[in-house]
């Protein structure tokens, strides 16, 4: 499990700290890479140093991001053959119907709302880690 990487795309440092804390608390030992806006996320996959970056087991994508929005990042990932099968979980505050619809239309593998209650959030992250890092079989890279 040591070689499994989670890519967290999150601009809010509080949310970043809480997500990392929740992962740690749930004994999810994978490495977590954090990028803090949409452009950085695209650079991770398509930038000049992209080849050095490991392919994430799962991408946790926030929707409201500076520079390039989360949905735009998702659209670009799905447009490229290199990343069109990349598992992407939308992890966001919004439960706007339009966001959920657009997320799935653009090919999100899952849509999870961050609960305000941290206990619930912990539980969500626990299940998320268990599912994507343990149960789910990723496409061959």
């Amino acid at each position, binding site marked *: 499990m040591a070689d499994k990487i989670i890519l967290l795309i999150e601009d809010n440092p509080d*949310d970043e700290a809480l997500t990392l804390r929740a992962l740690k608390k749930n004994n999810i030992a994978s490495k977590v890479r954090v990028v803090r806006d949409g452009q950085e996320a695209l650079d991770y996959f398509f930038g000049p140093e992209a080849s050095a970056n490991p392919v994430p087991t799962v991408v946790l994508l926030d929707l409201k991001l500076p520079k390039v929005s989360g949905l735009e990042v998702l659209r670009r990932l799905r447009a490229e053959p290199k990343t069109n099968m990349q598992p992407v979980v939308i992890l966001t*505050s919004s439960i706007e119907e339009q966001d959920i619809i657009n997320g799935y239309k653009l090919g999100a593998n899952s849509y999870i709302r961050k609960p305000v209650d941290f206990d619930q959030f912990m539980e969500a992250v626990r299940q998320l880690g268990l599912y994507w890092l343990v149960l789910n079989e990723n496409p061959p890279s």
Partner: protein
Amino acid sequence: MHALTELPIRTKLTIIIILTCTIALLLAGISIVAYDNYTYHRQKERSLSVQAEIIASGVIASLEFDDPKAAQEYLKPLAANPQIVTAAVYTAKGALFASYSRSATRRPPAMAEPYGQRLESNELTISAPVLQGRQQVGSIYIQAIIEPLITRVTRYGGIFVLAMIASLLITLPIALRLHYAIANPVYARSLIEASLDPFITINPDGEITDVNSATTKVTGISREKLIGTDFSDYFTDPEKARESYQQVFSEGSVTDYPLTIRHTGGDFIDVLYNASVYRDEDGHVLGVFAAARDVTAQKKAELEINRRTAELQVANHELEAFSYSVSHDLRAPLRAIDGFSLALLEDCSEQLDDIGTNYLGRVRGATQRMGRLIDDMLELARIARVEMRHEPVDLSAIAIEILIELQKNDEKRKLVWNVQPGLVAMGDIRLLRVAIDNLLSNAWKYTARQQQPRIEFGALLNEDGKTEYFVRDNGAGFDMAHANKLFGAFQRLHSDAEFPGTGVGLAIVQRIIHRHGGRVRGKGVPGEGATFYFSLPTDGDGVISHG
């Protein structure tokens, strides 16, 4: 004359017929009387002359033999003619030979009068010689009354009146029967004039042949000046106007052809033209009949509607952006407050005493409550924005589903519920589910402390004969004095400690029912229960508000 023009056409026609008949008969009567007067005299003169000649030839012998008695006898039969007043025979020397008088008062003159005829005060007198061969043997005198003109005119007057009545009896029914045929063109004309829409007829050369007064009004040009001029001259785009009537002549008609009329005052009037050809009895095209409809007001209204719709869309977009921002940005700090409070409790527990732990617990409680408030607020906004569908909705089935779900989540509670089956209304199934869910969840919540809780869903007819659906419970109820606060957003009639909640549920219900064009009301008695009634327009064209 003015009064006459205002009479109905039917009356006018009747008057004209009677007048014409009377004048014709009167003229006929006068000429008959004049002619009769002339011929009557001639005829009387002639008949009296003949009479005189007969007498003259009859008395020749008496004169020659000087036998006045015989002459007297000869004159006697004149009594058969009541018009003859006197008659006499004179000798050649002029002395009275024999005489006849109708009455004793009138006597013929003693001496013979000069020969000839005389008409004096209705009496015609003839004096003529009695000839034997070429020798005059005496003379004859005869005087007769001629009936006066006035007597005859009176008699004719009676005949005239009778003829008048007879002719009217014959002509009036015929005239009335023909009246519609005569009056219809007049009627049609008045209809054309009554129209507020401009009507124009055009001949195959494109010249105006007739217009109504609405056309005069819309162009600012008199009927006389319009007739004979080119139809297309009065539009902002004459070429397009020409094409319009050419199209009518080639295809038979045009519908809603848009043109703009130029008023002499400088105004432009947008119209839609409907035109078709009209033909004579043999089917030959005589011209085009065109009716225009002034759509300036509609166009203005359309622009206004478009402007308002655009404004509304902008407002809606702003509201959506606002909701989106609230949904994303307001909840993130809350999550941080809650998350780090928990982190404090977990990681720094040895530095916190019981009071500190308690306070952090309160921070977390308040944070989570605010999270729920934000969610409810967003839900309320979503209910107002969401697009409505209209379809039959089985309210009974929804209510049963929700009650089963509530029971499943809290299996320890023993609750009796009753749903009237087959209640179907027109509306948006998702919104109505939210409304019924809120009402039943409330009922569920407020009956929590009831020994034998009961929830009922059904329908009844109110005083206006309209269907009202209701959710009834025997729970905590409420004081009707505060009923006006029931449906206000974030308004509560119970404390959070008694019954938790944000006070948005009934506001959501009201918004959903209002969007369906219905009404909602609540009735309650503290400690005995509450009933919430709502109505939904039963057909598809109920007024749907966006409140």
